[in-house]
Protein backbone atom coordinates (compact mmCIF):
# COMPACT_ATOMS: atom_id res chain seq x y z
CA UNK A 1 0.00 0.00 0.00
CA UNK A 2 2.71 2.45 1.05
CA UNK A 3 4.67 2.36 -2.18
CA UNK A 4 1.59 3.49 -4.12
CA UNK A 5 1.20 6.65 -2.06
CA UNK A 6 2.23 9.94 -3.62
CA UNK A 7 5.39 11.71 -2.45
CA UNK A 8 3.82 14.13 0.04
CA UNK A 9 1.86 11.28 1.62
CA UNK A 10 4.98 9.10 1.85
CA UNK A 11 6.59 11.91 3.85
CA UNK A 12 3.93 11.32 6.49
CA UNK A 13 3.15 7.61 6.21
CA UNK A 14 6.09 6.00 4.39
CA UNK A 15 7.48 2.97 6.21
CA UNK A 16 5.25 3.52 9.23
CA UNK A 17 4.16 0.35 10.99
CA UNK A 18 1.42 0.13 13.63
CA UNK A 19 2.86 1.26 16.97
CA UNK A 20 2.14 -0.03 20.48
CA UNK A 21 -1.32 0.93 21.84
CA UNK A 22 -2.21 2.42 18.48
CA UNK A 23 0.58 4.99 18.55
CA UNK A 24 0.83 6.84 15.23
CA UNK A 25 4.27 8.35 15.72
CA UNK A 26 7.37 6.18 15.55
CA UNK A 27 8.18 4.78 19.01
CA UNK A 28 11.59 5.74 20.43
CA UNK A 29 13.31 2.45 21.21
CA UNK A 30 16.03 3.83 23.44
CA UNK A 31 17.83 0.55 24.04
CA UNK A 32 21.41 -0.33 23.25
CA UNK A 33 20.73 -4.05 22.81
CA UNK A 34 17.93 -6.57 22.44
CA UNK A 35 17.33 -9.71 24.48
CA UNK A 36 16.23 -13.13 23.20
CA UNK A 37 14.57 -15.93 25.15
CA UNK A 38 16.91 -18.61 23.89
CA UNK A 39 20.48 -18.96 22.73
CA UNK A 40 19.15 -20.54 19.53
CA UNK A 41 17.00 -17.50 18.72
CA UNK A 42 19.90 -15.08 19.11
CA UNK A 43 22.17 -17.36 17.08
CA UNK A 44 19.58 -17.33 14.26
CA UNK A 45 19.54 -13.52 14.22
CA UNK A 46 23.34 -13.30 14.23
CA UNK A 47 23.58 -15.79 11.40
CA UNK A 48 20.93 -13.90 9.46
CA UNK A 49 18.42 -16.77 9.54
CA UNK A 50 15.87 -14.56 11.26
CA UNK A 51 15.17 -10.82 11.09
CA UNK A 52 15.76 -9.15 14.41
CA UNK A 53 17.58 -6.50 16.35
CA UNK A 54 20.86 -7.21 18.09
CA UNK A 55 22.58 -3.98 19.00
CA UNK A 56 21.73 -0.37 18.14
CA UNK A 57 25.07 0.19 16.39
CA UNK A 58 23.89 -2.36 13.82
CA UNK A 59 20.20 -1.52 13.72
CA UNK A 60 17.38 -0.14 15.82
CA UNK A 61 13.60 -0.17 15.31
CA UNK A 62 13.28 3.65 15.43
CA UNK A 63 16.14 4.09 12.99
CA UNK A 64 14.75 1.38 10.72
CA UNK A 65 11.43 3.24 10.47
CA UNK A 66 13.36 6.31 9.30
CA UNK A 67 15.38 4.21 6.86
CA UNK A 68 12.26 2.67 5.31
CA UNK A 69 10.72 6.10 4.74
CA UNK A 70 13.86 7.67 3.26
CA UNK A 71 14.37 4.74 0.88
CA UNK A 72 10.78 5.07 -0.38
CA UNK A 73 11.21 8.82 -0.85
CA UNK A 74 14.25 8.38 -3.11
CA UNK A 75 12.31 6.07 -5.38
CA UNK A 76 13.10 2.76 -3.75
CA UNK A 77 16.18 0.93 -2.55
CA UNK A 78 17.80 0.41 0.81
CA UNK A 79 18.79 3.06 3.32
CA UNK A 80 21.31 3.27 6.13
CA UNK A 81 20.88 6.10 8.63
CA UNK A 82 24.10 7.40 10.15
CA UNK A 83 25.26 9.66 12.97
CA UNK A 84 25.87 12.60 10.63
CA UNK A 85 26.00 13.56 6.98
CA UNK A 86 29.79 13.24 7.08
CA UNK A 87 29.39 9.73 8.51
CA UNK A 88 27.13 8.89 5.56
CA UNK A 89 29.74 10.11 3.08
CA UNK A 90 32.66 8.44 4.90
CA UNK A 91 30.82 5.12 5.14
CA UNK A 92 29.76 5.27 1.48
CA UNK A 93 33.23 6.05 0.17
CA UNK A 94 34.99 3.53 2.43
CA UNK A 95 32.60 0.83 1.31
CA UNK A 96 33.62 1.35 -2.32
CA UNK A 97 37.27 2.37 -2.40
CA UNK A 98 40.53 0.73 -1.40
CA UNK A 99 44.10 2.01 -1.13
CA UNK A 100 45.38 2.96 -4.57
CA UNK A 101 41.95 3.90 -5.86
CA UNK A 102 40.91 7.30 -7.15
CA UNK A 103 37.80 9.41 -6.66
CA UNK A 104 36.62 12.11 -9.04
CA UNK A 105 34.85 14.78 -7.06
CA UNK A 106 33.29 18.15 -7.64
CA UNK A 107 35.64 21.04 -6.86
CA UNK A 108 32.84 23.04 -5.23
CA UNK A 109 32.09 20.55 -2.48
CA UNK A 110 30.89 21.44 1.00
CA UNK A 111 34.01 22.17 3.11
CA UNK A 112 33.59 19.13 5.36
CA UNK A 113 33.53 16.75 2.41
CA UNK A 114 36.44 18.60 0.78
CA UNK A 115 38.47 18.11 3.96
CA UNK A 116 37.57 14.39 4.16
CA UNK A 117 38.66 13.91 0.55
CA UNK A 118 41.75 16.15 0.51
CA UNK A 119 43.17 15.56 3.99
CA UNK A 120 41.81 12.39 5.58
CA UNK A 121 41.50 9.96 2.68
CA UNK A 122 44.91 10.93 1.28
CA UNK A 123 46.43 9.36 4.40
CA UNK A 124 45.00 6.02 3.34
CA UNK A 125 46.43 5.93 -0.16
CA UNK A 126 43.36 7.31 -1.90
CA UNK A 127 43.72 10.04 -4.52
CA UNK A 128 40.89 12.49 -5.05
CA UNK A 129 40.82 14.62 -8.19
CA UNK A 130 38.68 17.75 -7.92
CA UNK A 131 36.95 18.88 -11.10
CA UNK A 132 34.56 21.71 -11.86
CA UNK A 133 31.18 19.90 -11.78
CA UNK A 134 29.94 21.97 -14.72
CA UNK A 135 32.87 20.70 -16.82
CA UNK A 136 31.41 17.41 -18.01
CA UNK A 137 34.28 16.77 -20.42
CA UNK A 138 36.69 17.41 -17.56
CA UNK A 139 35.03 14.58 -15.63
CA UNK A 140 35.02 12.31 -18.66
CA UNK A 141 38.68 12.84 -19.48
CA UNK A 142 39.83 12.51 -15.85
CA UNK A 143 38.51 8.95 -15.55
CA UNK A 144 41.38 6.46 -15.55
CA UNK A 145 42.03 2.82 -14.63
CA UNK A 146 42.14 3.64 -10.92
CA UNK A 147 38.90 5.65 -10.77
CA UNK A 148 36.24 3.94 -8.68
CA UNK A 149 33.53 6.54 -8.15
CA UNK A 150 32.26 10.00 -9.05
CA UNK A 151 31.01 12.26 -6.25
CA UNK A 152 29.02 15.47 -6.73
CA UNK A 153 26.49 17.65 -4.92
CA UNK A 154 23.16 18.55 -6.50
CA UNK A 155 23.84 22.17 -5.66
CA UNK A 156 27.30 23.26 -4.55
CA UNK A 157 27.42 24.82 -1.10
CA UNK A 158 28.05 27.74 -0.98
CA UNK A 159 28.96 28.11 -4.68
CA UNK A 160 25.38 27.25 -5.72
CA UNK A 161 26.55 25.76 -9.00
CA UNK A 162 24.12 23.22 -10.45
CA UNK A 163 25.71 20.33 -12.36
CA UNK A 164 23.80 18.33 -14.91
CA UNK A 165 23.52 15.19 -12.77
CA UNK A 166 21.82 12.98 -15.40
CA UNK A 167 24.67 13.68 -17.84
CA UNK A 168 27.28 13.02 -15.14
CA UNK A 169 25.48 9.74 -14.42
CA UNK A 170 25.78 8.85 -18.08
CA UNK A 171 29.52 9.58 -18.04
CA UNK A 172 29.99 7.50 -14.89
CA UNK A 173 27.96 4.56 -16.20
CA UNK A 174 29.74 4.52 -19.57
CA UNK A 175 32.94 3.96 -17.59
CA UNK A 176 31.32 1.33 -15.33
CA UNK A 177 31.50 3.61 -12.29
CA UNK A 178 28.87 4.57 -9.72
CA UNK A 179 27.72 8.16 -9.28
CA UNK A 180 27.32 9.22 -5.65
CA UNK A 181 25.21 12.35 -5.19
CA UNK A 182 24.94 14.48 -2.07
CA UNK A 183 21.40 15.85 -2.34
CA UNK A 184 21.25 17.61 1.03
CA UNK A 185 20.49 21.01 -0.47
CA UNK A 186 17.71 19.84 -2.80
CA UNK A 187 16.22 17.04 -0.64
CA UNK A 188 14.10 14.29 -2.24
CA UNK A 189 11.37 16.96 -2.60
CA UNK A 190 13.05 18.83 -5.46
CA UNK A 191 14.40 15.69 -7.15
CA UNK A 192 14.72 12.03 -6.22
CA UNK A 193 17.81 9.94 -6.77
CA UNK A 194 15.75 7.97 -9.26
CA UNK A 195 14.88 11.06 -11.33
CA UNK A 196 18.52 12.21 -11.35
CA UNK A 197 20.01 8.83 -12.24
CA UNK A 198 22.20 8.68 -9.14
CA UNK A 199 23.28 5.24 -7.95
CA UNK A 200 23.72 6.20 -4.32
CA UNK A 201 22.29 9.31 -2.68
CA UNK A 202 23.58 10.77 0.58
CA UNK A 203 21.99 13.45 2.72
CA UNK A 204 22.89 15.37 5.79
CA UNK A 205 19.52 14.87 7.46
CA UNK A 206 20.52 17.53 10.02
CA UNK A 207 19.37 20.11 7.48
CA UNK A 208 16.01 20.25 5.66
CA UNK A 209 14.94 16.70 6.52
CA UNK A 210 15.11 17.50 10.22
CA UNK A 211 13.87 21.01 9.54
CA UNK A 212 14.24 22.44 13.02
CA UNK A 213 17.95 22.16 13.69
CA UNK A 214 17.42 19.75 16.58
CA UNK A 215 19.81 16.92 15.75
CA UNK A 216 22.69 15.74 13.59
CA UNK A 217 22.15 12.87 11.18
CA UNK A 218 22.85 11.44 7.77
CA UNK A 219 21.59 8.79 5.43
CA UNK A 220 22.89 6.64 2.58
CA UNK A 221 20.32 5.46 0.04
CA UNK A 222 21.41 2.66 -2.26
CA UNK A 223 19.01 2.64 -5.17
CA UNK A 224 19.97 -0.92 -6.00
CA UNK A 225 20.61 -0.12 -9.66
CA UNK A 226 24.40 -0.19 -10.04
CA UNK A 227 26.07 -3.32 -11.43
CA UNK A 228 28.90 -4.18 -9.03
CA UNK A 229 29.87 -7.27 -11.01
CA UNK A 230 33.08 -5.78 -12.37
CA UNK A 231 36.83 -6.28 -12.25
CA UNK A 232 36.98 -2.80 -10.77
CA UNK A 233 35.23 -4.10 -7.66
CA UNK A 234 36.67 -7.54 -6.80
CA UNK A 235 35.96 -6.82 -3.11
CA UNK A 236 32.24 -6.82 -3.98
CA UNK A 237 32.31 -10.34 -5.45
CA UNK A 238 30.87 -12.24 -2.50
CA UNK A 239 28.28 -9.53 -1.86
CA UNK A 240 27.27 -9.42 -5.49
CA UNK A 241 26.91 -13.17 -5.61
CA UNK A 242 24.59 -13.13 -2.60
CA UNK A 243 22.71 -9.85 -2.92
CA UNK A 244 23.12 -8.71 -6.55
CA UNK A 245 21.60 -5.22 -6.76
CA UNK A 246 22.08 -4.56 -3.05
CA UNK A 247 25.72 -5.64 -2.92
CA UNK A 248 26.72 -2.13 -1.81
CA UNK A 249 24.30 -2.04 1.13
CA UNK A 250 25.25 -5.56 2.16
CA UNK A 251 28.96 -4.68 2.14
CA UNK A 252 28.30 -1.43 4.00
CA UNK A 253 26.10 -3.10 6.64
CA UNK A 254 28.23 -6.16 7.15
CA UNK A 255 31.57 -4.35 7.16
CA UNK A 256 32.08 -0.59 7.06
CA UNK A 257 28.96 0.73 8.78
CA UNK A 258 29.22 -1.99 11.43
CA UNK A 259 32.95 -1.47 11.94
CA UNK A 260 33.09 2.32 11.83
CA UNK A 261 30.12 2.48 14.16
CA UNK A 262 28.78 5.87 13.10
CA UNK A 263 25.20 4.80 13.80
CA UNK A 264 22.15 7.02 14.19
CA UNK A 265 20.88 7.58 17.73
CA UNK A 266 17.28 6.35 18.17
CA UNK A 267 16.09 9.69 19.58
CA UNK A 268 17.57 11.54 16.59
CA UNK A 269 15.87 9.07 14.25
CA UNK A 270 12.58 9.86 15.99
CA UNK A 271 13.11 13.61 15.56
CA UNK A 272 13.80 13.02 11.86
CA UNK A 273 10.66 10.93 11.32
CA UNK A 274 8.69 13.76 12.92
CA UNK A 275 10.46 16.55 11.06
CA UNK A 276 10.34 15.02 7.62
CA UNK A 277 6.53 14.96 7.58
CA UNK A 278 6.42 18.68 6.79
CA UNK A 279 9.33 18.68 4.34
CA UNK A 280 7.27 19.40 1.22
CA UNK A 281 5.47 22.34 2.83
CA UNK A 282 8.68 23.75 4.21
CA UNK A 283 10.61 23.38 0.95
CA UNK A 284 7.95 25.39 -0.86
CA UNK A 285 8.37 28.22 1.63
CA UNK A 286 12.18 27.97 1.74
CA UNK A 287 12.20 28.32 -2.05
CA UNK A 288 9.67 31.16 -2.29
CA UNK A 289 11.36 33.10 0.52
CA UNK A 290 14.74 32.69 -1.17
CA UNK A 291 13.42 33.96 -4.48
CA UNK A 292 11.75 36.95 -2.82
CA UNK A 293 14.89 37.93 -0.89
CA UNK A 294 17.12 37.36 -3.94
CA UNK A 295 14.98 39.78 -5.97
CA UNK A 296 15.11 42.44 -3.24
CA UNK A 297 18.87 42.11 -2.77
CA UNK A 298 19.41 42.17 -6.51
CA UNK A 299 18.20 45.76 -6.78
CA UNK A 300 19.54 46.97 -3.43
CA UNK A 301 22.14 49.75 -3.89
CA UNK A 302 24.46 48.37 -1.21
CA UNK A 303 24.56 44.85 -2.64
CA UNK A 304 27.33 44.21 -5.18
CA UNK A 305 26.09 40.85 -6.41
CA UNK A 306 23.54 38.10 -5.70
CA UNK A 307 23.82 34.42 -6.55
CA UNK A 308 20.58 32.44 -6.61
CA UNK A 309 19.74 29.85 -9.28
CA UNK A 310 16.14 31.08 -9.22
CA UNK A 311 17.08 34.49 -10.65
CA UNK A 312 16.38 34.53 -14.39
CA UNK A 313 19.85 35.87 -15.22
CA UNK A 314 21.65 33.20 -13.19
CA UNK A 315 23.77 30.95 -15.44
CA UNK A 316 22.35 28.04 -13.42
CA UNK A 317 18.73 29.02 -13.98
CA UNK A 318 17.91 26.79 -16.93
CA UNK A 319 19.51 23.57 -15.68
CA UNK A 320 18.23 24.08 -12.13
CA UNK A 321 14.73 24.70 -13.44
CA UNK A 322 14.88 21.56 -15.54
CA UNK A 323 16.25 19.22 -12.85
CA UNK A 324 14.36 20.58 -9.84
CA UNK A 325 10.91 21.28 -11.22
CA UNK A 326 11.14 25.06 -11.33
CA UNK A 327 12.16 25.25 -7.67
CA UNK A 328 15.57 26.61 -6.82
CA UNK A 329 16.19 25.79 -3.18
CA UNK A 330 16.50 27.77 0.01
CA UNK A 331 20.11 28.92 -0.23
CA UNK A 332 21.41 32.16 -1.72
CA UNK A 333 24.64 34.08 -1.43
CA UNK A 334 25.36 37.77 -1.88
CA UNK A 335 28.22 40.19 -1.48
CA UNK A 336 28.65 43.76 -0.40
CA UNK A 337 32.08 44.22 -1.94
CA UNK A 338 34.31 43.60 1.09
CA UNK A 339 34.65 41.61 4.31
CA UNK A 340 34.11 44.59 6.65
CA UNK A 341 30.72 45.45 5.19
CA UNK A 342 29.72 41.78 5.14
CA UNK A 343 30.44 41.63 8.87
CA UNK A 344 28.38 44.82 9.38
CA UNK A 345 25.42 43.24 7.62
CA UNK A 346 25.66 40.07 9.71
CA UNK A 347 26.00 42.10 12.91
CA UNK A 348 22.96 44.18 11.94
CA UNK A 349 20.64 41.20 11.47
CA UNK A 350 18.18 40.52 14.28
CA UNK A 351 15.91 37.76 12.97
CA UNK A 352 18.50 35.79 10.99
CA UNK A 353 20.88 33.78 13.14
CA UNK A 354 24.64 33.82 12.52
CA UNK A 355 25.62 30.16 12.70
CA UNK A 356 27.13 27.22 10.82
CA UNK A 357 24.12 25.35 9.49
CA UNK A 358 21.54 25.37 6.72
CA UNK A 359 18.02 24.03 6.25
CA UNK A 360 16.53 25.22 9.52
CA UNK A 361 13.02 26.67 9.88
CA UNK A 362 14.86 29.81 10.99
CA UNK A 363 16.72 32.04 8.56
CA UNK A 364 20.47 31.56 9.00
CA UNK A 365 23.53 33.42 7.74
CA UNK A 366 27.26 32.86 7.83
CA UNK A 367 30.43 34.44 6.46
CA UNK A 368 32.08 31.29 5.01
CA UNK A 369 35.53 32.78 4.30
CA UNK A 370 36.19 33.39 8.01
CA UNK A 371 34.39 30.32 9.37
CA UNK A 372 33.52 27.09 7.56
CA UNK A 373 36.09 27.72 4.80
CA UNK A 374 38.75 29.45 6.93
CA UNK A 375 41.15 26.51 6.65
CA UNK A 376 41.35 26.66 2.87
CA UNK A 377 43.87 28.64 0.85
CA UNK A 378 42.95 31.33 -1.65
CA UNK A 379 43.00 28.95 -4.60
CA UNK A 380 40.75 26.45 -2.85
CA UNK A 381 38.38 29.18 -1.74
CA UNK A 382 38.17 30.35 -5.34
CA UNK A 383 37.26 26.82 -6.47
CA UNK A 384 34.54 26.75 -3.82
CA UNK A 385 33.30 30.14 -4.96
CA UNK A 386 34.05 31.69 -1.57
CA UNK A 387 34.96 35.36 -1.72
CA UNK A 388 35.83 37.64 1.21
CA UNK A 389 32.55 39.56 0.89
CA UNK A 390 30.28 36.49 0.51
CA UNK A 391 27.39 36.02 2.92
CA UNK A 392 25.49 32.73 2.70
CA UNK A 393 21.82 32.87 3.58
CA UNK A 394 19.73 29.80 4.36
CA UNK A 395 16.18 31.03 4.10
CA UNK A 396 13.84 29.92 6.86
CA UNK A 397 10.09 29.61 6.72
CA UNK A 398 9.24 32.85 8.52
CA UNK A 399 6.94 35.46 6.97
CA UNK A 400 8.91 36.74 4.02
CA UNK A 401 8.19 40.37 4.93
CA UNK A 402 10.01 39.98 8.27
CA UNK A 403 13.04 38.43 6.57
CA UNK A 404 13.21 41.19 3.97
CA UNK A 405 12.85 43.92 6.62
CA UNK A 406 15.65 42.31 8.65
CA UNK A 407 18.05 42.37 5.70
CA UNK A 408 17.03 45.87 4.62
CA UNK A 409 17.71 47.23 8.12
CA UNK A 410 21.05 45.41 8.30
CA UNK A 411 22.08 46.79 4.90
CA UNK A 412 21.16 50.31 6.07
CA UNK A 413 24.00 50.04 8.62
CA UNK A 414 26.60 49.62 5.85
Amino acid at each position, binding site marked *: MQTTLRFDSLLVHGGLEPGPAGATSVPIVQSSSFAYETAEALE*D*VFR*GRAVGQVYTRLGNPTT*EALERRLALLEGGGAAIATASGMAAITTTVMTIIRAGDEILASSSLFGGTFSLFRDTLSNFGVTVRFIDPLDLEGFRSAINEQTRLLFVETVGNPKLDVPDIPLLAEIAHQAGLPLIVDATVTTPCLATGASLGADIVVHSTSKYINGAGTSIGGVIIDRGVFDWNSQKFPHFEQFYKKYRAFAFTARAR*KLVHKDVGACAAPFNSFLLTEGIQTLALRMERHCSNALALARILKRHPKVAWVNYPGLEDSPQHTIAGKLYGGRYGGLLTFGTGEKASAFKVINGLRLAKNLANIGDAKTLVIHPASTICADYNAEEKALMGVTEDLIRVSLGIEDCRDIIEDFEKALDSV
Partner: protein
Amino acid sequence: MKITINGKETALAENPARTVESLLDELDVAQRQYISVELNGEILERDAFGNTPVQSGDILEFLYFMGGGR
Protein backbone atom coordinates in the same frame (compact mmCIF):
# COMPACT_ATOMS: atom_id res chain seq x y z
CA MET B 1 8.95 -34.35 0.58
CA LYS B 2 11.16 -33.10 3.34
CA ILE B 3 13.82 -30.37 3.16
CA THR B 4 15.71 -28.45 5.83
CA ILE B 5 15.30 -24.67 5.94
CA ASN B 6 17.44 -22.65 8.35
CA GLY B 7 18.08 -25.78 10.38
CA LYS B 8 14.43 -26.85 10.64
CA GLU B 9 13.06 -29.89 8.86
CA THR B 10 10.11 -28.79 6.75
CA ALA B 11 7.53 -31.00 5.01
CA LEU B 12 6.32 -29.75 1.62
CA ALA B 13 3.76 -31.08 -0.85
CA GLU B 14 5.38 -32.89 -3.78
CA ASN B 15 5.94 -30.46 -6.65
CA PRO B 16 8.48 -31.31 -9.34
CA ALA B 17 8.30 -27.77 -10.72
CA ARG B 18 9.39 -26.18 -7.43
CA THR B 19 12.45 -23.92 -7.68
CA VAL B 20 14.24 -21.85 -5.05
CA GLU B 21 12.42 -18.79 -6.44
CA SER B 22 8.98 -20.41 -6.20
CA LEU B 23 9.80 -21.75 -2.73
CA LEU B 24 10.53 -18.19 -1.54
CA ASP B 25 7.08 -17.28 -2.90
CA GLU B 26 5.45 -20.33 -1.38
CA LEU B 27 6.86 -19.51 2.06
CA ASP B 28 6.14 -15.81 1.60
CA VAL B 29 9.68 -14.91 2.71
CA ALA B 30 9.84 -11.23 3.68
CA GLN B 31 12.35 -8.63 2.40
CA ARG B 32 13.36 -10.90 -0.46
CA GLN B 33 15.85 -8.45 -1.97
CA TYR B 34 18.00 -8.57 1.16
CA ILE B 35 18.22 -12.35 1.42
CA SER B 36 20.97 -14.65 0.27
CA VAL B 37 20.44 -18.38 -0.27
CA GLU B 38 22.77 -21.25 0.49
CA LEU B 39 21.86 -24.60 -1.01
CA ASN B 40 23.56 -27.65 0.49
CA GLY B 41 26.36 -25.49 1.86
CA GLU B 42 27.05 -23.51 -1.33
CA ILE B 43 26.08 -19.89 -1.98
CA LEU B 44 23.51 -19.84 -4.74
CA GLU B 45 23.86 -17.08 -7.34
CA ARG B 46 20.78 -14.86 -7.31
CA ASP B 47 20.25 -15.34 -11.03
CA ALA B 48 19.97 -19.08 -10.45
CA PHE B 49 17.03 -18.90 -8.01
CA GLY B 50 14.49 -19.34 -10.82
CA ASN B 51 16.07 -22.38 -12.45
CA THR B 52 17.39 -24.28 -9.46
CA PRO B 53 15.02 -27.11 -8.53
CA VAL B 54 14.35 -27.90 -4.88
CA GLN B 55 14.73 -31.61 -4.22
CA SER B 56 13.90 -33.85 -1.33
CA GLY B 57 16.64 -33.77 1.30
CA ASP B 58 17.98 -30.36 0.25
CA ILE B 59 19.41 -28.18 2.98
CA LEU B 60 18.60 -24.51 2.44
CA GLU B 61 19.65 -21.42 4.35
CA PHE B 62 17.82 -18.15 3.79
CA LEU B 63 20.08 -15.48 5.28
CA TYR B 64 19.42 -11.77 5.94
CA PHE B 65 22.08 -9.12 6.38
CA MET B 66 23.24 -9.49 9.95
CA GLY B 67 21.93 -7.15 12.59
CA GLY B 68 18.67 -5.36 12.14
CA GLY B 69 17.75 -7.84 9.48
CA ARG B 70 18.79 -5.81 6.49
